[in-house]
Each structure stands twice: as C-alpha cells, then as structure tokens.
C-alpha cells in the first residue's frame, strides 16, 4: 500500500526539558454517531467489545493487539471518535443496515500535534481558551475548541502531555501558532 502523506510531514521541535512539539501522523480515526442508550449503541459496544465513555469530554484508553493504545473520545452525547482502533471499521460496518448509527472513516480529516514537557500546559494556555486546570481538564479529558481561530480537539493524555487534533487544511496554521506560542520555551 502506498504510504499516506501527513499534513505536517512528521514535523517536530523543542525538547522534553521544556516542551517538545511533534506531529503524530496518520492516526486511524473513525467518527461514530449513535444515540446514547439506544439498542444501536448496545450493538456498537458489543461489536467492539468495549463500553463507550458516556460523558461528553471523557476519553477512554484501550489496549489493542500489538501493545499499542487506542482512544475513544466522547465529543457529544451521541458522538465519538475512535482513534487507533484499526479493526473497528470492519466490525461496525455491518451495523449500518440494521441500526441507526453512522460510522465514517475520517482518518484524513485531521492530524495530531502532541505537546509534551513541563511547559506544555503553559504553551497550550497561550492559545487554548478553555480551563486547563487539573480539576477541570484532568488526564483522560477531551474537548473541542479553537486554536488560533481553527477548530481543534484537545486531549489530555498524561500529566505533561497533550494532543491537539487539527483538521488537515488548518494543520500548518495551527502548527505555526503552537510553535510561536512556545517561543519563550522552545
């Protein structure tokens, strides 16, 4: 299979001592829409063998074969992103005929920028208008919002690590904005 090109072509800058900023290209992503509490949701969960996080803003980490991690992001009461669940598309595709749900491959829609290091939160706070305090946005949180006027999804992955999922057309713009915000540290 011909390799895909990512919008940021694997760019990285900074250091772990302050903040490292890098692209995580090509995360396989499915957009899942299904009514909460419906039989369709049950069917989805059965097909996947997992329970979907129920609250908007929750991110659930699941281990997948091969030792890697996948993430299930609850973006709205009836809306999830399945990131890194490679076999989910196959498992869910048949449900379309039977249930009211929507599973769409959106891997090309976004790319991911990761910020890691003691100053990661501070750099992000320059651009991200939402509350990043531990009590409001603990590890395992996800939120949609704007960075430099571009729509993004932010995830708190680990104590000093955040991900910003940005739409491919905005990726270069958001990358530049994040690197610029880091100027005092990078």
């Amino acid at each position, binding site marked *: *299979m*011909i390799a*895909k*090109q*990512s*919008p940021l072509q694997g760019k990285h800058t900074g250091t772990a001592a302050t903040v490292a900023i890098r692209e995580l290209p*090509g995360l396989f992503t499915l*957009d899942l*829409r299904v009514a909460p509490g419906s039989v369709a949701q049950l069917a989805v969960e059965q097909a996947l063998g997992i329970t979907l996080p129920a609250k908007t803003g929750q991110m659930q980490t699941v281990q997948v074969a091969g030792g890697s991690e996948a993430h299930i992001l609850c973006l709205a009461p009836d809306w999830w992103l399945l990131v890194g669940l490679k076999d989910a598309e196959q498992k869910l595709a048949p449900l*379309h005929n039977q249930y*009211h*749900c*929507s599973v*769409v*491959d*959106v*891997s*090309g*829609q*976004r790319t991911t920028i990761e910020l890691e290091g003691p100053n990661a939160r*501070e750099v992000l*706070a*320059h651009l*991200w*208008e*939402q*509350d*990043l*305090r531990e009590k*409001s946005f603990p590890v395992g949180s996800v939120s949609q919002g704007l960075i*430099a*006027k*571009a729509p993004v999804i932010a995830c708190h992955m680990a104590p000093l690590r955040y991900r910003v999922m940005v*739409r*491919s*057309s*905005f990726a*270069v*713009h*958001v990358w*530049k*904005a994040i690197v*610029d*915000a880091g*100027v*005092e540290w990078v």
Partner: protein
Amino acid sequence: MSEIHFYFDDQLYKGQPGEPMAAALLRGGLLSITNSTYHGRPRGVIGLGVEEPNALVQLVSGTKESMRPATVIEVAEGLTARSLTGIGALPEDAEEARYDKTNRYVDTLVVGAGVAGLTAAAEELRAGREVLLIDDQPTPGGHLRHLGLELPSALGDMLSHKNLTYISRCTATGLYDQNYIVAIERRSDHLGNAAPVNRARIRVWHIRAERVILASGAFQRPLIFANNDRPGIMLSHAAATYVAVHGVKIFKQAVVVTIDNQGYRDALRLHNAGVNVLGIYDARSTASGASVDAAKAAGIPIHFRATVLDTSSNAEGILNGVTIQDLDTKEIVQTATDLLAVSGGWTPIVDLATHIGIKPTWSGQHAAFLVNHTTDKLRTAGMLAGDFGGDDDPAVFFGPVLDAEQARTAYIDLQRDSTLHDLRRGVGAGLHSIEHIKRYTTIGTAHDQGKTSGMLTIGALCQVNNGEPARSPADIGTLTFRPPYVPIPFAALAGRERGELSDPIRITPLHQWHVEAGAVFEDVGQWKRPWYFPKPGESMEDAVKRECIAAREGVAVMDASTLGKIDIRGADAGVFLDRIYTNMFSTLPEGQCRYGLMCKADGIVFDDGVTTRLGKNHYLMTTTTGGAARVLAWLEEWLQTEWPELEVYCTSVTEHISTIALVGPKSRALLGELVKDIDLSAAAFPFMHSREATIDGIPVRIARISFSGELAFEINVNWGHARYLWEKLWKLGRPYDLTAYGTETMHVLRAEKGYVIIGQDTDGTQTPYDLNMGWIVSKKKEFIGKRSFQLPYLKAAGRQQLVGLIQQPGEELIPEGAYITVLNATQDDQGAPADRHGKTQHTGFVTSAYYSQTLGAPFALALVADGLNRMGEVVSIPIGKKVLQATICDSVFIDKENTKRD
C-alpha cells in the same frame, strides 16, 4: 544599588532601580515637564501613578509607545523619552517587540496588592482556594510602598504560598461579564537593554475567576482654585512620597491645603524630611486624630476654615506663592512657597466594578463614591469599599467659590485644559447632565480619563446650579467609566494575530505542488486556491486562455479539494435531503449523483452542489467552498431543533477527501491509464454516476460530474493520498499535455455553460426562478423556502432573471458588476446621462463576464429585469463616459444539447 542612566528631552538623568521616571526627574530638579495641550501652560508632575494628567512622555527608545505618564514608567538602562504636550506621535519604523496573550482560570482573582488585597488573598488561601493576585506596581504593598514601608511579615510570607500566583506590573484593564478580566502585564520595559528578545513585552491575560476581589485602592484628588495647575502644585501624598521616599530635595518650604487628615500625614512626612511646612490650611472647622495631634506636636501651624484661592508663579510659570482665603471672613493672605501640597480627599478606584454596570454609591462621610459590593462572585475591599483606615474624616469640599475671572484658570481637567469657566458656560447653555458637561468641556476624555478630574466635575456641578436647587454628588452621579482602565497599545491587543497568523490559512494537500508550479493564489474565505497557473512570461489572460483551451480540447486538471463534503447517513437521509433541497433526492438511484439547490426559509438561494447516493441510507453531499461550515450547521440546526425524529447523521469529511477534477475530451483516455479496475466507457459509466475503483491499490471514488460541460471525472481520494495521485496523473499526463487550471478558468468554463456560482451570480436576493432554474424546484414535495415563493414580491412579474449577454468579437469585455440599461438610455443628444430624478434607470447588472476562447467573443451572465422575455434585445452598459452594448441571450453559451460531456 547601582544607578540607572536615562535620557529625557535629551538630558541625562539618574534613577534607582524600580522607581518611576517622575521621581528621578523631580530629583533631578525638573519641575516643569511640559506645556499643556491647548493653553500652553507649563505643567509638572502632580500624581503618583496612572492618575497623572500632566507628565506625559513618549518612549523614544525601545518600543516608542506613543504616550505614557512619567509616573508609571520605571527607569531602566537605555531608556530615552521625550515630553509630550498631550498629543502623541506614531513613528513609522516597524514595531519589533513581541506581544502575546494567555488564558488563565483561577478560583479567586484579587486585583490590587495593597494591604486590602493581600489580606483578602490570605483569607482566600485559608479557605483552600487557589489565588491569582495582580498588581500594577513593580512590588506589592500598595500605599505602603509610597510610605517606604515593608510588608507586614505575615502578608509578605503569604506571597510564597503554593496556591498563590502573584503577578507584578500587571494591570487589570477591564472587568467583563461572568468574572472575565483582561489584564496587561508589562514584562520587559523595566529590564531596559537587558530584556531578552524572545520575551513578550506585554502579555495580555484573559482571566476567568470564580471569585473576583477588587482592592484597587484610591487616588487622591486635587481642589479647584485659580491657577491650580502650576508646577510646584502636587497631590500631597505624591509630594510627600517623592520627598520622603525618593529623596527629592528641591522643595524648601511647603504649604499644605487639605480637607481631610491625609493632608496632616503628608505634612508630617514633608516636615520629617526637612521641608519647612509653612502651614496646613484645612477647609474644615476642626480636625482630630493622631495625625492632627502629631502635626500640632511637630509645630506645624494649622489654620481651619481656610483654603487656597489662587497661586502665583515666577517668570517660568513655576509656583512661588499661594493666596489663602479664610472661608468665613473671605479675607485673603499671600504666602511665598515653592510647594503646594493638596489633599482634596480620596477617590476610590471604582472603574473596574462599574464596567459591568455596578453603580457606585455616594458616601458623604467619605466624601467619595464607593463600591461596597459583596456577592459570592464579586466583592470589593479596602479603600474602594470605604475602608479609608480610620481617622480621615474628609469634608465634602471641592474648592472655594471663584469669580468669573478666577474660574478661567481654575483647571478641572488639566490635560484637556478644561476649566471651571468652561463648565459654567455649559451649565449656562442649558446643560444639566454631567454627561453633557463632559461632552461640552471634554473633561475626562484625555489619556488619564478623568481619574482626578471626574470627581472635581461633580463637585463643581454641585456648586454651579444655574438657579436650580443645589444638587449633591448623589444627584449628579459619576461619569461613565469604560475599559480600559489604562490605555493599552494596539500592538498588545493584536498580540500574535499578525501577519500569517492573523487569520487561518487553509490549504489542500496539493498546495505545495501549486506553489512550486508558480500558481497565483486567490483567497476564497480562508482557503488559498490557485487562481491561474501562468507560465513564465504569461499574463493572466494568456494563462486562462491556455487553460481553457486545454480543458475544451485536451485534458486539464484542477484541485477541487476545498469543496465542502458531508457524509449523510440514516434511514431518513433521503427524506431529509428532500426537505433541504428544492429538488428530489429520495428517488436518486444508488451510485448516482444529482445537482441540488438549497434555499433559506425566505426562499432565497443559499448553496448548491452535487450529492451522490452511495447506498440505500447513505449520501455524500458536496457544498461550495465557502459554504461548507454554513451548510453543515444548517443541516444540524434542522435535525436537532425541528426534526429530531429523522434518523440522520451528518459528518464533515471535507478534509478526509481530496477531490481532483480531470476535465476535457481526453480525460477518459488519461484516466484509463490510471484506473484499470472499472470500465470508464460512457455506456458502462454514464454521466452523473459514481464508481469505486483503485489506483495503485489506493481506493478512490470517481464521479462523472462536469462543471465545464466537458467530459470530466472527479476523483475523490483520501487527503493523504492526494499528492501521490496528483503526481502520478502528471507523470501519465505528459503525453496528453495535461494542463493545470485554477479558479479563473473554472469560472470561464462554467459560465460558458451557464452554470451559476452562488455568491457571484446571486447577491442574496434570488430565488431559483430568478436563476432560470424553475426546473429544479419540485412541485411534488415540501421543502425549506417553498412557502416564500408565494410572497407577492417574490412571485411578481418583471423580477431580475439570469440571462446571458453576448458581445461581438473584438469588443471590450464588460466589467463584472456593471449595470445595464435599455439601449441608449444613458445618452441624449449631448451624450449626457438621461435624467430620471437625477438618476439613470437600470434594468439589471452583470454578475460574471469573461472572454470566451470558444466563442471568440466576450460574454457575460447578468441579472436582467424580465430578462427571460427579452431574448435578442440589445442593451447598453454605461461605463464611465463609455457605453458598451450587448445582446441578451440564453445563459447557456456552448453545447446546449449536452453532447460534449459524454
């Protein structure tokens, strides 16, 4: 500590780290800093901080900010400044400093690190809250700093509490709804030459706090008397602080005029610092308290019921004497002095609280407007809330009664040179409201925003009543305080939203290829789209001609990735689309595509595009480039707020899918070299059909859609594979002379075929019928906008309708946007415009106009009144003095029979 050298008006001065420039200038003997804006009178420092109306300077070194008072500029090595007469200048060289912004959420924000703010912060910490404490001074302590005192140790220790963040040099400039505070932190000016280049000079803080505590303290205010503006007249607290804390030694003797006990405290400080205090003149009839006793004990003469009426000056305009009036006998005495220290009472800094509509209340006891406000979200503390610290006991007194002549030099707003005389004229002219007085006199509108003059205006209005009953400050009320509390440089508020970061630039996966191919780009919303691809030496016209020929005669390719794409799924998807589009989609067979038009409820066309049915319950909608977000929002709004019963989900896949349009008679042949697993023949793959295929193992979806009238294929591929595919196409396309084209050629091609562009051939007033697209309006079903077609004006005869205009070969192209008149309407015998109420009646306008290589002539699309019934009519298009002509025709110029697209 090491001395700092700086220049002011080309003179060298010496300062101490952390001290304001004003202190160093005074210590250096500079009393008259500038001349006033309108009256040209000499003026000196009167205040301690942001309330200063006189000592305005412009930074010449570093950033050259246009105007700041010398009382707030910290001296720093390399600092150079010049005086201003109240008018700033904007240097033309580029501003290099960095300005940034950040966001901060906190349990409690405390504004002001005086004793009140520090105490409040300590309470909040004890309650287990996280606290952000901001203060505009370089160090904490508020008025304690002016007294040269250290913080009490408990408060000092608190500053290192783990739950407290203290930011110095940080001014809260505005309080907004829901405890949103904007603050600006000045982070590098005080470092002078030593400031690191990557350090933001000013950081704008956007703070959201669960609780806000305002402890902003108070300004001392002056009094109104004749010639109250001379250098040598200062607020007493400022004078005492400059003398006692900053070592200013230029005053030998002083007169103190006061209405409260603060005057006594300051008199004592002057006295203790070695200034000969000639007397305290107190408008009150008696005074008591520790400071009064101490002043007496120090032997300072005290005169009650006396105040200053006028002053005198030397030849340079600098104070050399005061005239004191006995308020009861009206007797006057004159005293020579080189300092007049004025204590006119406190004016609590109510600004921030009032920004969100809280009204200050007048307290006669404090002789001040206070904000004493406590809710669990917002409270005030310290002087702002009326805690003046015990024994001040101020009189409600703003100055002696002045005659007309005295009033002419009795300044209320020093920076605007507005006097009591001006105020009286306003009242005399019939003005009653303080807001009118402000606008009549311009009081309170200068750089200091009336921080000292606002209260004087109120006081003066209490006296000047124009025959009506005297009013109290409570009747008059304050002027309106508005953000920002202190002026903020534009650059700081622009922050990093400069240059390429000023607005997102959206690009497709093929962008870099376009750049390398020399494309000229066009901004379409936030997208950068190739407009045309000039070869070396080619003009736009040449390039577009060449691109058009390639598309009509060979094969050409365009990046259409910017089109909005929405995946629509669910059992009711078809029904839903039927309601959204004017035409029917539930009947569209699977694997086929259909062009659709959508209207807003008012019947006006709003977007269009091709939607493909991918499966029984599955559609893929495309929207215009600019419409993508709008259309998705529109679909969601109806689904969520009107038709929740419909089983439909919409998902944006605009950037998941990249679209490449391959156009031209040779497109099938070229595509055939790429795609081997499906039959591309017209019979097997008809127009408006869609097929899955693979190219080098990459899955693609190919649709036979044509926006040019030519045989054309749209290849949809994952965004990440687009560049590979595009390159491959170019490799295989070389023998076909494959040509890249941009939006301009796309426009020419579509216009020749009569296809509209929503937003170009429409202006937000067209129904589908106006676009001659009645054929797309279903009679069989209900859809959004349909009802509006019945409104009288929308169904009226004679509406403007989309038609073509054809010109003769060689004629000048009609400019887009030009208006159309009936033939020769614009010309009478003299060639002057025909007049109908001074205007020329038009009959429509040109929406799109191009030169057509195919037609060999210029042509246009136009909206013409009753145009569809006027085929063949020759019309005029007046362009300045010139008049062009064209013939109304069908809007489809080429291949009316649709033979080419197969």
